[in-house]
């Protein structure tokens, strides 16, 4: 075990590979060339359309010990990963690594295949049951949790080589041109899968909406696609996108949102050219609602909104509050509809969005980002991966990338959630290091990272209730009582990678 710069013990070797501990004073930098895959040829007259997933797996040459990937734009409505894993099992292939962009509760169906040895490691973070099973020691399957930008980086550098990527293509032609805008499984942006299409050795487009050649607009081109497969259904449309995402009605959430918007105003960033990102949670949207009103009042024209896009950001685009939306994933139907017809609603890849190792990602251009947290600590470290019971239940998403890139990274969270205090002496797991977090907003007070004395003065001047984070922690704990720490074994079930590829924390099996 090695100690990283945040005081976390991380293994020097995990799943047979040597790892580098996170060091905030010496972040990793890129070395060498981008990973390159074999050059291909498809001759005139050759066809790519195969009769089914099994044929595509056979044609791809997938063998024991190889790596597959899917994307998670179909979220908890995705049918594809489960189908692919079943076919791999039926073909007798074993020891497969999954390097998807994320895994959701619907993928609990792969747990029996992990137990059976069909799937033996995950080069991707997990949401829900797979992580819980690993935390309880029910499955033995090393997991590497990466941010969206970190995943793009790991494929670009060749740290993760995907042998076969299966790209769910909601609108696709027989030569593999695709977009995510139309069809029964329309999900909008296909941002995460752009990197799969660029770096996977073999790319299979899977569609439930085969349209005459050529698809228009083309988001992922035919030149990257080896095979095309038609299936009955890619997913459950009701679970692919939310019908609507709504501003919270909870008074605590509204109070937090009001404070967060005041912090943005006091920061001086809210002026012409302002760029902004929030998640789809009710409190995040309430912050957007407050910021929107401030922009309308003060006649501010922003530059862009980015990230996972909601109908709320679409409204702001249409009202002229942003010039452009840069969209890596659509969260609701309004966003899907908008990206399919508004030229100013631009699809971007996970690489463009957040990769730390390219000529500059979108997150570097962000003014303010609103982020959530399961726990924060007095050093401003944030945990979104493990729940307070110790189970690995959530993926990182763009949390670390946007926090590192944005000028102002604000955490919004209620001070208490079901008796659990949000601010601790030490978070259970570090997802995002405190040095990337600027302000923590709770309904009981706002804590400002000590590197921002000027901002702190501005907030106090604006009569925003700024408190020292240690005092805030004490105040909250007096109400909740001190929680008994969750006990862990020594078995490391997952590593949490920082966006540069170093190891920021490890997740251990919970002692039940």
């Amino acid at each position: 075990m090695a100690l990283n710069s945040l005081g976390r013990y991380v293994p020097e070797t995990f799943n047979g590979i040597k790892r580098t501990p996170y060091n905030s004073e010496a972040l990793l930098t890129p070395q060498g060339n981008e990973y390159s895959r074999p050059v291909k040829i498809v001759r005139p007259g050759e066809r790519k359309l195969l009769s089914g997933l099994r044929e595509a797996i056979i044609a791809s040459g997938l063998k024991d010990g190889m790596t597959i990937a899917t994307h998670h734009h179909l979220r908890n409505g995705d049918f594809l990963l489960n189908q692919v894993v079943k076919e791999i099992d039926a073909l007798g292939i074993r020891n497969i690594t999954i390097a998807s962009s994320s895994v959701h509760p619907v993928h609990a169906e792969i747990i029996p295949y992990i137990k059976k040895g069909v799937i033996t490691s995950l080069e991707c973070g997990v949401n829900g049951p797979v992580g819980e099973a690993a935390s309880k020691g029910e499955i033995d399957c090393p997991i590497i949790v990466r941010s969206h930008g970190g995943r793009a980086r790991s494929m670009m550098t060749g740290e993760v080589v995907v042998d076969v990527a299966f790209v769910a293509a909601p609108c696709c032609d027989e030569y593999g041109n695709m977009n995510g805008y139309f069809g029964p499984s329309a999900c909008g942006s296909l941002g995460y899968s752009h990197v799969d299409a660029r770096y996977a050795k073999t790319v299979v487009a899977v569609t439930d909406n085969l349209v005459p050649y050529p698809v228009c607009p083309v988001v992922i081109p035919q030149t990257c696609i080896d095979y095309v497969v038609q299936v009955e259904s890619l997913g459950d449309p009701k679970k692919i996108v939310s019908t609507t995402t709504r501003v919270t009605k909870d008074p605590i959430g509204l109070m937090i949102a009001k404070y967060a918007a005041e912090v943005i105003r006091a920061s001086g960033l809210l002026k012409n050219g302002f760029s902004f990102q929030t998640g789809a949670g009710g409190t995040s949207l309430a912050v957007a609602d407050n910021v929107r009103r401030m922009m309308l009042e003060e006649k501010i024209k922003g530059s862009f909104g980015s990230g996972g896009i909601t109908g709320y950001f679409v409204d702001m685009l249409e009202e002229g509050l942003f010039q452009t939306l840069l969209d890596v994933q659509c969260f609701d139907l309004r966003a899907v509809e908008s990206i399919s017809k508004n030229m100013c609603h631009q699809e971007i890849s996970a690489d463009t969005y957040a990769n730390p190792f390219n000529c500059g990602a979108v997150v570097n251009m962000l003014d303010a980002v609103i982020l959530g947290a399961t726990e924060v600590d007095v050093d401003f470290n944030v945990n979104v991966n493990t729940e307070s019971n110790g189970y690995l239940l959530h993926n990182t998403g763009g949390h670390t990338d946007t926090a590192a890139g944005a000028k102002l990274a604000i955490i919004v969270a209620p001070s208490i959630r079901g008796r659990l205090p949000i601010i601790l002496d030490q978070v259970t797991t570090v997802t995002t290091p405190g040095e990337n977090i600027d302000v923590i907003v709770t309904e009981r007070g706002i804590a400002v990272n000590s590197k921002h004395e000027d901002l702190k003065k501005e907030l106090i001047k604006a009569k925003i209730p700024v408190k020292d984070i240690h005092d805030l922690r004490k105040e909250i704990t007096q109400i909740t009582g001190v929680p008994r720490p969750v006990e862990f074994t020594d078995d490391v079930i997952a590593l949490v990678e920082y966006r540069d590829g170093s190891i920021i924390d490890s997740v251990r099996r919970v002692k039940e």
Partner: protein
Amino acid sequence: MKIARRAQAGTMQSSDIMVFAEPGDELIIEIDSTVAKQYEHLIRAKITEVIERMNVTSGIFRIKDRGALDYAIAARVEAVISRAQEQEA
């Protein structure tokens, strides 16, 4: 004082607690909580404190806790004990 009859207090909302009381020869407290790992000791301590303060010596208390704070726990336990003592009309 003993629990005279069945009673309940509280809700299953997040941050609330549901308390069921029924007659029994001994004093038994069964706790099921979303935060049992972190807080079972404090939940038990608060319930015991209220039971003792109200001089209850026997009865079965079944708890479904969804992360209630101490004041909510005390109020729900006090309510259930009062209801369990009320005379039938």
